């Protein structure tokens, strides 16, 4: 396996991990935007894609107000 292949694999794993940490898991509310290695990862409407409406709880809030790409 070449170095290039290893790096590609590590990048994919890192992106998957971070994607799952912020896009997976038990959803209580909202979306977040963050910057990784100077690249903004923008999650648009993840709540609509990943969580049914009943998962949204009024008593729970995100630590930061969500930023959305559209609206």
């Amino acid at each position, binding site marked *: 396996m070449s170095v290039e292949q290893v790096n590609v694999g590590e990048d994919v794993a890192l992106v*998957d991990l971070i994607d799952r*940490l912020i896009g997976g898991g038990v959803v209580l509310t909202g979306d977040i935007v963050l*910057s990784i290695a100077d690249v903004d990862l923008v999650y648009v409407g993840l709540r609509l894609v990943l969580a049914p409406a009943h998962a949204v709880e009024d008593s729970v809030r995100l630590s*930061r107000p969500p930023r959305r790409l559209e609206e």
Partner: protein
Amino acid sequence: MIVLYALVPAEQAPLVTAQNGLRVLARGSVAALYDEREEAPSTSRQDILDFGRVISDISKAGPALPVRFGTVVESLSALGDLLERREAEWQERLATVAGHVEIVVHAQDAAAPAPTPAAPGSGREYLMSRAAARRHAEAMYDDLTAGLSAHCRESRRLQASEEIRVACLVPAGDTESFLAAVESWAGAQQGRRVTTTGPWPPFSFTEKETG
């Protein structure tokens, strides 16, 4: 404020909190693992990865439902209410993910039709190219999930731009045969390329599949 990490079976919580210093609030059969902090977690890469390490440690101790990074609750009473309302749902999910890990499969096909025409053309040509690429991707997704279904308790399609990305819930002791099935699927047709990542905690299986 209360920063949530994961939901675990109540009887498992003392073991987990002893390992990593988290606090626990149990209602019925389900417990929430949390930390009390003055400030909300930042969205720095380091904070996210640190959170991931704690989730990984929790998952090694037994079944766990990770909570999405950055989730905080107002008070312990709000968290208690939440646990009471959703205990049955989370209990079912904990039973489902017990003994399983998540593996993410990325699949591409070099022979797939391009989503846009090679040369600038009419709007109709553009739309037809898009439709052909979409049909090809859907067929590949169906074929991939069919090929792996015997090894996955559940699967979820994840968002992806130029590939198919599927999260599979695989028995922890069956990952080698799962990866062999992935390789077999890729080798069945020229041009297919797959990458797998994991095993991860069951990030994508914290909610029952809908629709």
